[in-house]
């Protein structure tokens, strides 16, 4: 089987997304769960860049926006983690029950 670089990149992107999903399911540390979400965003960026080669450069603009939103998400998410750490003395996602009534 002869894979070109674009199909191989799409498969790599699928693999990275799957690893990110597995990481979200398997880790308890909220910061590492966040890092897995960043990995999933990057996997999507990779597939968007593959598509931008043949479908037009607007896809790269979308990657740009994904990066900006990821930066905003990381800032707010880490601030929430700091606030939760102060409350619970830990970052274990199993112990967060602020929204449970």
């Amino acid at each position, binding site marked *: 089987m002869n894979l070109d*670089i*674009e*199909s191989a*990149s*799409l*498969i*790599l*992107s*699928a*693999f*990275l*997304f*799957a*690893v990110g*999903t*597995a*990481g979200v*399911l*398997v*880790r*308890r*540390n909220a*910061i*590492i769960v966040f*890092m*897995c979400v*960043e*990995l999933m965003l*990057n996997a999507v*960026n*990779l597939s968007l860049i*593959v598509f*931008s*080669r*043949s*479908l*037009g*450069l*607007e896809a*790269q*603009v979308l990657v*740009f*926006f994904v*990066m*900006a*939103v990821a*930066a905003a*998400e*990381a*800032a*707010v998410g*880490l*601030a*929430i*983690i*700091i*606030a939760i*750490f*102060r409350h619970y003395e830990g*970052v274990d996602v199993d112990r967060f029950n602020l929204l449970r009534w």
Partner: protein
Amino acid sequence: MMEAFFFLLFAVMAAGGAIMMIASRNPVSSLMYLVLAFFALSGIFVLLDAHFLAAVQVIVYAGAIMVLFLFVIMLLNLGHREDIDMRGHLARLVALVAGSALFAAVAALVLRGDESTLASEESRLAVEAMVRARGAVGALAEPLFTSYLVPFELTSLLLLVAIVGAIVLARRRAP
């Protein structure tokens, strides 16, 4: 041939870094493996002719965002090995099955799709001509500052809201 070699190198680095990130029990080494994966991904971006985004990937992701994560890990003193961090066998099995199913589904889609899925040859040539005429940055700036100008400006508003929100959330409550 050279391209295939570098692609394989970066792909193995990215995939290995990602797997080691979720397998490593120390948060700091997890983060370092993620940085490795991001560097490898930026190499793949270069191979795919997205030079500007490769630079942004290194500066913004591997540089700024990952340093932010490292700051928080150090600030909360989480930089040591935590065995409780990994879930039990059942959750690992669920994660393995879910991950493999997701990967298999998308990979089957990619492998089964014919050439028309990835657009025609003339649109590919049009994109290449655009990049050659305007350069990697100019070709990206053209749509960004014309048809996507309003979303671009809204992004700055989003970042401002994120800054204010982060300060409000992480600030200590006044006594």
